[in-house]
């Protein structure tokens, strides 16, 4: 493909967030939309997520990851989105000039009237959680193992221990069992599951793989290859419980200990990041602190369902196109959104005071602590409750949403700020 010098919208990353953004940008009238992807094919991490469970909201079907991606790839091609594969974005300026490198073109630059950041996230590694012990071969992140087993056709080991009860770890526990490996156990330092309950049922319980809550790894043992791990129980403050140590023989340790939004490029462009989410501060259009630079999907905050990533992509793509077509947009007057009682963060971080006149705005949030009873999710201003709805529980592993509707426009317009609380109904 011959690339142009300037595009209306450039999307960085061809995963679900980027593909949805590109499609919607095109549909919203952007004349040329370019997706830049460093891999040699489109689809992003969905390509290695071969298990089903995707698309229940978007397509009302239970699809595997590659099929979910395929539908967006087909649509992106059909609406005329352009692609640069095998191309790395090395730098992005606040003026939206991209510095790129590829085998085909070498080093080159191009400009964008609007940019959508859709770089996704990365896995937390051993170094980031500081597991003591030897440093043999055989310690991998769960996603790396997933790529090898599902795409490249390699088994990383025979006898596994998995640290962390994130979704990828549980899904890999089942996948490795399917491929004939033994998974001795899954350890979780917290007192609750960090992934979805359904994955506990169909990945661990179905295959008799034990889950040990409030357990972690004290030491990795093995000189050239992992030979065993020493596990230990922890108390509520994650202190080791003396005498609870156990040596578990294994040849491979997989880590499923969290995902971090990938924002090296965002920083280069001067985009301000929220230390809680590790993603950009965004408004309800998913515009970052730098005008004309939008962000969608796991680059903003880590989602547990791809369906929500696609919706975020739609929003970012639509507004990126509008920005590209009309840069004269007036500076918005914002109402800040704050994380209140038992809320870790709320996305978006701020809301255009008049946003609700244009339609609904979905707030996405995660709670700090699990509440295993009926809860209220409530949005309030200084003076009044704006909306509240109930849920049967709230868990840190499961993102919750609450919708602001046009009927609340007046209350939002008058508010100094909005705060979101999640609390047991019994406390109300």
């Amino acid at each position, binding site marked *: 493909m011959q690339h142009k010098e300037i595009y209306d919208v450039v999307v960085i990353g061809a995963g679900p967030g980027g593909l949805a953004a590109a499609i919607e940008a095109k549909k919203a009238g952007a004349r040329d939309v370019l997706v830049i992807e460093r891999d*040699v094919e489109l689809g992003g991490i969905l390509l290695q997520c*071969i298990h089903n469970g995707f698309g229940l909201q978007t397509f009302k079907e239970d699809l595997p990851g590659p099929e979910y991606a395929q539908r967006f790839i087909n649509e992106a091609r059909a609406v005329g989105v352009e692609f640069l594969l095998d191309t790395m974005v090395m730098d992005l300026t606040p003026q939206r000039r991209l510095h790129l490198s590829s*085998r085909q073109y070498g080093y080159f630059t191009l400009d964008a009237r609007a940019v959508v950041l859709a770089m996704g996230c990365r896995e937390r590694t051993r170094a980031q959680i500081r597991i003591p012990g030897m440093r043999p071969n055989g310690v991998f992140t769960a996603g790396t193992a997933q790529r090898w087993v599902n795409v490249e056709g390699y088994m990383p080991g025979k006898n596994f221990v998995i640290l962390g009860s994130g979704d990828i770890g549980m899904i890999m526990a089942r996948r490795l069992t399917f491929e004939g490996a033994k998974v001795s156990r899954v350890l979780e330092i917290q007192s609750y599951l960090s992934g979805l309950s359904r994955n506990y*049922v169909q990945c661990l319980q179905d295959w008799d793989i034990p889950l040990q809550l409030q357990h972690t790894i004290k030491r990795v043992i093995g000189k050239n290859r992992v030979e065993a791990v020493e596990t230990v129980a922890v108390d509520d403050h994650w202190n080791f419980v003396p005498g609870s140590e156990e040596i578990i023989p294994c040849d491979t340790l997989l880590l499923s200990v969290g995902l971090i939004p990938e924002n090296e490029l965002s920083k280069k462009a001067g985009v301000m990041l929220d230390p809680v989410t590790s993603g950009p501060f965004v408004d309800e259009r998913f515009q970052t602190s730098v005008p004309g630079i939008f962000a969608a999907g796991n680059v903003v905050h880590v989602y547990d369902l791809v369906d929500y990533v696609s919706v975020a992509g739609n929003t970012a793509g639509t507004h990126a196109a509008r920005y590209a077509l009309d840069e004269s947009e007036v500076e918005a007057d914002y109402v800040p959104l704050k994380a209140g009682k038992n809320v870790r963060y709320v996305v978006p971080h701020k809301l255009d005071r008049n946003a609700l006149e244009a339609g609904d705005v979905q707030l996405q949030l995660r709670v700090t602590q699990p509440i295993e009873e009926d809860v209220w999710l409530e949005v309030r201003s200084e003076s009044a409750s704006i909306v509240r709805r109930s849920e049967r529980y709230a868990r840190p592993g499961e993102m919750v949403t609450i919708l602001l509707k046009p009927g609340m426009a007046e209350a939002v317009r008058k508010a100094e700020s909005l705060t979101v609380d999640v609390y047991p109904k019994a406390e109300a």
Partner: protein
Amino acid sequence: MQENNFICTACPMGCKLIVRMQDGEVVKVVGNRCRRGETYGRQEAIAPQRMVASTVRISGGLHPLLPVYTKGSVPKRRIGEVLAAIRAARVSAPVKAGQVILANVIGTGVDVIASRDMPEYSKSSPENSKHP
């Protein structure tokens, strides 16, 4: 009256189901928030079913493996046989998403289909420029 407790896997909400049984028959499902939950609870109590996803060796493709899945649910106790049939299968690129790889796998009435397009590996294609 016998009670079985399940966590519904029909969607990510993970409703806690209680399935009340009498003489091997489901009398009532409670705790579900939708009809899929009711169906799941009844099925789970009598004969659990699951979708299965795995990979098939593919020759001449961009990657050595083709992801596949069962178009519907199969009996949980037969998953091992389904996996063995998938493991024994061989296909050649190109393949289109949705293409049937194993029809009526082990007589379950369910097809195993391709989860994605798998283009042929070709040196000249820009999609393959990373490959030597």
